Every structure is written in C-alpha cells, then in structure tokens.
C-alpha cells in the first residue's frame, strides 16, 4: 500500500491584529475553531515510535488525544489529557513546545510538526466552555496521610493534584493572596488569561486539595513545625522569585523596576485597570527593558499596552542567543518593540528629583563561547551612548527566595541558592522533604516544574505507603 501523502501545512493560529493588540490586554492568540483543530489533528500520522510523547515532561498520550479530536470525541480527548496534565489550558499556551513535544514530533524533520500545544489548548478551552470548569473524577480511596505543599506555582499545583488523586490529604500553603505562582503574578493576561489559571486552580481544589493563601511558610509555621504537627511529608515548590539587579550606579532611581515588581503590579494587582484597581504602576513614555528572556518580552509588551510611545529591549548578546521563545520575540517585534542587541547598560542617569532620565550603555561584541555554550559578550571600549528614558524594567533573572531554606534545618543549597534534590524523585537531603520546580533548577519552564511536581508526588506516595 502506498504511504498516505504527508500534509505539511500547519494550520496557523488566528491572532489579534498587532496594531490593535498593542493597546489592549486581551489574549493575543485566539485559539483554533473546531474545524481548524480537526484539520490540524488530521495531519498526525499516529506514529508507532511516539517521538512526541518522549518530548513531553509529563508524558501526555499525545497521539491518543489528537486521535480523539480527529474522531470528534472531545470528552475522550479531555479525559486523556487530564489523566496526565492537570493544567492543559496553561501548558497549551505557554509551554515552549518548539523545544519539547513538537521538537520530537516525527514531522519536525520536515519542518511542520503537529501543533500539539495549540491542540492541547483547544481541548482545554473546549472543556471549559462545554463541560463546566471542573470535570470531577471518582474520589480515590483515602490513604490517610497528610502532605503539605509549599507554593502554588505549577510545581506545587501538579504535586498537589497528583497526591490528591492518590488519596492523600493535601494542603497548599501560598504566600500571596492568590494561587498560581508565576502564572498569576508574572505571565501577562494577554498571553495567559488569569481566568484560565483560576479555572485550573479550581480544578485542583475540586480534587480535595485545601488552599491556605496569605501563608508565608518560614514566617508562619516553619517546615519543621509542619512536619512536627500535622504533616507526614512536605513538598517545596517555592519557585525562584527573588529579583536580581545589576548593581550599577543609579539603579535605585525612581522609575526603575525589577520585572517582578512591574509584572506583579500589572498582572497580580491589575494596575492596568488603575484606579478601579487601587495599585498604581508608572506608565513610561520611553521605556527600556533590559534582558532577552520571556520575562523581558512580557515586560516590554506590558509597557506598550499601558501606553508607552516607545519601548526598547536591550540585550547584551545577539538575537540567536536570546533565551525567549521565538514566537514571543516575533510577537514583540510585530507590535513595534525595538531591539537594541549587543548593548549593555553602564549606568542609569537621574534628575534632581531622583527620576530616571537616561540609560548609558556600552556596545558589545561577541567573543569565545562561555560555560553556557553561548558566545561571551565583551564591552567595546569607548562605545558609550545614552538612550533617553523615563522608565526602566530590569529583567535579569531571578533566584530562589532564601526564606524557606534559611528557616529549615538540614536542607542543602547550592551557591545559586537553589535546593539540592534528587533529579528523578525530587527528594532533598532532609527527611520527609521533597522539592521541585524553579526552587531546584533555577528559573526554568512551567512544564519542567510540573514534571518535577509529578515525579515528586509519585515518590512521596511510594514513601507514604512504604
């Protein structure tokens, strides 16, 4: 029998027009229609050697759910997805699919991998629209053990969901007033609507997981106190939420934000709706964002949407080294954000009122590759020039908040402040304590945090039953 002809035409994602979307916080990518989803699903050749699954840290049965879409059996697609992934509406939107499941799809070699993320998003959105927010599952047999999960980012939510499904009684302690971690305070509405995060948090709660908000572990109970009172095991998913600054002159001028502060004000506190929401944020007219990752792209695109006339991204290497997702870089460029590559700040300049008015930069060139394999940026002496600005956002990366490690006896930390934990199981060197997500890896991805939460949950379950 002749092989069926491969269809290499990926169904494009409908998106908001760049001119319009630069002025609103509505979602940029609009999602597939049922027809588009079915057409994209029909391209999947249902490989025996499931390359796609190998690329997914939570091992979703990708061919299975795609086939269900093709068959028009959406409830089945939902069931398959949810059996491995409690947060499909989130992953479908923000997973770096191009380096994960889609990179290992058999059709990737031909340059047209199945749009797995878009299909996953489609199924999650279909579920919310058609099956109500939470699909309840049969309650598991109670196992009689209690687990405390610290932090409600993707790592904590996933660990909690899996442990609850295994019959354990789980309480999440979250420092902020909402659950979701970076998904709520960091990633902007136009990329990941908060309503979707909330729906997926509600789903986790519907599994019986208790949420204790406003609960800063280490300040309220410490990890040891949790273990000595009510809990048989603790999972730490506290993320890497402490911002880094450059330590250059002028950094504390008014108008200079860490990306965390800027994004928290805008996303978590909804400053883009000030004064209806009471938390203010400065609306710069000329804004510089420093950095080349997703966080920098998000900050720049938020500044634009708040009403900036001109937004620059300054990055010290060149475009190929930028760690941000390609798609987000393209979105940013389309919206009119100007990239100043091979540029690095020397100092911030201020006026008498302590407001930032300029940023003095060096031009950079690339030298030999460094430890990370990327070519090391080197200052071009005498190349200083100044950009006039009235707001700066520093998106230079984050490191773990030391609060939990510093109040817990017997945890081991690395020199970057991350926790030492077994790569497979998330077990720390401390008895009854597991960890996973950014707290272990440093700033990484939603899906790797979820994978860590999943593996830790399995190991915790084995320990509790052991």
């Amino acid at each position, binding site marked *: 029998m002749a092989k069926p002809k491969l269809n290499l035409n990926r169904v494009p994602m409908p998106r908001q027009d760049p001119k319009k979307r630069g002025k609103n916080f509505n979602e940029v990518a609009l999602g597939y229609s049922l027809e588009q989803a079915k057409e994209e699903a029909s391209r999947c050749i249902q490989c025996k050697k499931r390359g796609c699954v190998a690329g997914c840290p939570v091992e979703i049965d990708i061919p299975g759910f795609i086939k269900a879409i093709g068959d028009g059996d959406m409830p089945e697609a939902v069931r398959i997805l949810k059996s491995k992934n409690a947060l499909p509406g989130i992953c479908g939107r923000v997973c770096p699919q191009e380096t994960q499941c889609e990179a290992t799809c058999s059709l990737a070699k031909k340059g047209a991998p199945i749009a797995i993320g878009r299909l996953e998003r489609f199924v999650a959105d279909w579920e919310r629209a058609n099956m109500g927010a939470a699909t309840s599952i049969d309650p598991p047999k109670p196992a009689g053990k209690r687990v405390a999960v610290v932090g409600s980012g993707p790592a904590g939510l996933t660990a909690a969901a899996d442990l609850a499904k295994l019959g354990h009684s789980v309480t999440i302690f979250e420092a902020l007033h909402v659950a979701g971690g970076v998904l709520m305070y960091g990633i902007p509405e136009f990329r990941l609507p908060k309503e979707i995060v909330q729906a997926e948090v509600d789903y986790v709660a519907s599994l019986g997981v208790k949420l204790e*908000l406003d609960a*800063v572990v280490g*300040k309220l109970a410490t990890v040891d106190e949790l273990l000595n009172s009510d809990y048989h095991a603790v999972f730490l998913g506290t993320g890497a939420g402490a911002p880094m600054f450059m330590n250059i002159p002028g950094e504390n001028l008014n108008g200079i934000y860490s990306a965390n502060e800027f994004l*928290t*004000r805008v996303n978590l*506190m909804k400053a883009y709706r000030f*004064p209806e929401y009471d938390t203010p944020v400065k609306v710069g007219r000329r804004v510089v964002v420093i950095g080349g990752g997703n966080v920098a792209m998000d900050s720049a695109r938020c500044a634009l949407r708040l009403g900036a006339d001109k937004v620059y991204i300054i990055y010290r290497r060149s475009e190929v080294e930028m760690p941000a997702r390609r798609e987000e870089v393209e979105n940013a460029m389309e919206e009119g954000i100007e990239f100043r590559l091979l540029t690095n700040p020397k100092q911030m300049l201020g006026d008498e009122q302590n407001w930032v008015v300029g940023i003095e930069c060096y031009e950079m060139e690339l030298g030999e590759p460094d430890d990370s394999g990327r070519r090391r940026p080197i200052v071009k002496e005498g190349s200083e020039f100044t950009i006039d600005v009235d707001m700066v956002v520093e998106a230079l990366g984050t490191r773990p908040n030391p609060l939990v490690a510093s109040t817990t006896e017997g945890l081991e930390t690395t020199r970057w402040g991350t926790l030492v934990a077994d790569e497979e199981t998330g077990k720390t060197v401390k008895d009854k304590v597991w960890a996973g997500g950014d707290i272990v890896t440093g700033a990484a991805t939603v899906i790797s945090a979820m994978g860590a939460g999943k593996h830790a949950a399995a190991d915790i379950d084995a320990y509790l039953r052991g």
Partner: protein
Amino acid sequence: MYKILLKQDLVPGIHLFKVAAPAVAKKAQPGQFVVVRIDEKGERIPLTIADWDREGGSVTIVFMEVGTTTARLALLEAGGAIADFVGPLGLPTHIEKFGTVVCVAGGFAVATIMPIARAMRQKGNKVISILGARSQDLLFWEDKLRSLSDQLIVTTDDGSYGRKGVVTGPLKELLESGEKVDRVIAIGPSIMMKFCSLTTEPFGIKTIVSLNPIMVDGTGMCGCCRVSVGGETKFACVDGPDFDGHQVDWDLLFARQRIYLDEEKRSFEQWQRSVHR
C-alpha cells in the same frame, strides 16, 4: 477573610483594629509587620504589628489615615472583615540586654514602639521613652507607654501638652546630660527618624530605625522596597524593616516614597467621588 474583632478610634485620623488572625498571632514578634489588602480591588499595604494575643488569636494594628487604603480601612467597623492579612513579615527588632534603651516614638508610632519597649524592659533594660505628637489632641497611650518606661518625656510641636517642640530636643538633652545610653530606637515619620539619627550620631550611639518604603508583596519578591544602607541595596521587607539609622540613605528613601504621589492623589479623588455619589 480576617474578622475585625474590635475597633477603637484613638484620636482623629488614627484607629486601632484587633483582627482575628490566630496563625499570625502565634508567631508575631516586636518590630514585625503585616501586609493588609481590604478587598479584591484593594492595594497591599504594610502596617506594623502593635500587639498580639497568642491565646485569643488576635493581632492589633494601629493606622493613620493618609490615603485611599487607610481611609477605606477607617470606614470598617468591628464585625467587618479584611480580605488579606499576611504576616508576620520582616525581621523582629533585635532585643537584648543593652543597659539603657531610649525609645523615641513620633505620632501613631507610639503603638508600634510599645511591644519593643515592653520586650526591652522584660530583658532588664532601663527604658526611657520620648513620645512626640503635633498637639495634645493627637496624643494617645501616654499612660500605657509610661507604664512600660522608667522615664517618659512627652513633646508636642505646638506646646499644647508636655514640652513644646519635637522629640530630638529632649533626646539631645538626655545624651548631653551624661546619661549612659546604650541604644536608641526611633520610630515614626521618616523625617523624624532621620533627625533622631542625626542627633545621636555625634554621640556614637547605635540608633535603630524602622524604615517604611512603599511595598508590594512584603516577602522579598519584587524589590519595590529597596533602600540603601551603608552603601548597599537592601530589601526593607526581608532585610529590615529595622536598620542602623546612621547608615541609611535618607534622601533616597524620601525620593522613593514619592514615586506614586500623582497616582495616590488620583486614586483618593476618585474614591472620594465614589463615596459622595
């Protein structure tokens, strides 16, 4: 939700709430603070823990009406509730037996210095307190502070009660009088803390101030609260709020407290319009 168990209007514009927050009450220590958010649309603001009742499960805060959030808080009554009440945040004040400790409180800060004075006394320190207010009608808890102090001096700016003038007057006299002072704790408006620090500096007496930059999360996650102390950038919410007053870059603190003046005004006007409608 965190229920307001008791409300007291201490003096015009300054109110006390006793809030049901058992977990916070269990852990609270002198010098720590909470972050409060009234409701879904509200801002997160820091307020010092003025007292706590570990058995009763309550935490006391005292706040002054200065803008939208504090004015809206002032409208709440006992029986009402606050959406979020996060704490205890920040490092506790360093308490030990120093010898003689001078506690200087300006305005509403008499409430926030109370647990510190009490803890210092319990450690066996001689506690001399200086309490300053703009005028007699803004003065409260004089008796309470007196009962925790070996000596209490009261000043009012307008001379309507106690000594006329500001707190730095008696502070300077005390240091000049030859009284051996081992530590000064000054809490109140930033400008008052700055001048207390300037007053003690020539005498070389370590002076602890409780800095109040603008904050968001209060857990070290945003960097909004950064202050410069001894030439180093610190996050007041996790590295403080207590710092060595002689090392603080006061001008930076003042400047950063003014970042949102325009927005605060807009917010307050819009809120007033909505109330009067």
